[in-house]
């Protein structure tokens, strides 16, 4: 296979580079001793539109592993998801994707569209 003559030129403008997320982000929900398993499942189903099986699996992950990644996408969308979780009374944080730190890391959860 012939080698490429030259690296592919990056033709993006500065504006485009700025609007492309440097890296994906995630929303992580953390365990607490107060929130009901049924309520956490309901939040995941109603807010993220998860199927029942997926919502229950992620809820159990929060319960047994202390945390679960519930969505991934742009920083702006993850901040919106985190704010919504706080409105429901769940503790969520915005984390860079691929951050180590226990079960549930990585690109789990619901893929979110780009912010409007």
């Amino acid at each position: 296979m012939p080698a490429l003559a030259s690296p592919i030129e990056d033709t993006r403008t500065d504006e485009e580079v700025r609007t492309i997320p440097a890296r994906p982000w995630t929303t992580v929900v953390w365990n607490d001793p107060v929130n009901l398993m049924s309520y956490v499942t309901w939040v995941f189903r109603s807010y993220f539109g998860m199927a029942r099986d997926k919502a229950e699996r992620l809820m159990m992950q929060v319960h047994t592993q202390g945390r679960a990644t519930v969505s991934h996408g742009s920083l702006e969308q993850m901040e919106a998801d985190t704010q919504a979780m706080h409105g429901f009374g769940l503790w969520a944080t915005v984390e860079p994707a691929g951050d180590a730190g226990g079960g549930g890391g990585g690109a789990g959860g619901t893929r979110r569209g780009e912010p409007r």
Partner: protein
Amino acid sequence: MGSWEFVPTSSGWVAYLDAAERAAVLDVVEDVTELLAAEEPGGPWPQVQLSEDPVTAPADPALRRLLPDASRGAPEVAAEFRRLTEGELRTTKTGQLAVLRSALVAGTPEVRVARTDAPAVAAALTDLRLVLAERLGIRTEADADAAYRLVVEGGPLDVTDPDGVARRFLATVSTLLGVLQESLVGLMLDGLADAAGDDPAGDDAAGGDAAGGDAAGGDAADGRSAGRASSA
């Protein structure tokens, strides 16, 4: 004593609390509403414009649990998130508490919640329970179990121990709130199953507009005591 659990009726979801129970819950609603108005930069009213100044995390741990940090490892991310969203989050939570308060003061002895109000009521019940848990020093599931045991098997009250009396009272209100929430959320989950059409067992539920109430569909909530409801 009321039965505490929400049940479906032809005119919404209804729980029964006696006057003392309703007054106790209303007291907590008032306390948490005041808490959300406290420590607010620029005064006790919702901010009408975004502050340019940094917003520090609340000093009261209960308020901090309602308005938590949005990052564990990046304080500057948490601070910026707080600056942009905390005022709105306080307003959201205060509004949810107002929906619960309306349900509590509207009827005696019924506490009637329309389906459309149920999410706000469930979120408000969560916030009340989070604050009570913080006041009771509940940090772990074992702490939560201990508080529940205090309610169901605490034995006679020692009225010469005001701290013990207060603790028992808070734990009892917390248990009541847990039963209200678990039963309400069970109905809300049944409603989701109905909407998604993934609950073939649900069509034998009682008639009326509250169909899907207590029939076989409640698998996400059943098998658990609502009193010491399982937490996630």
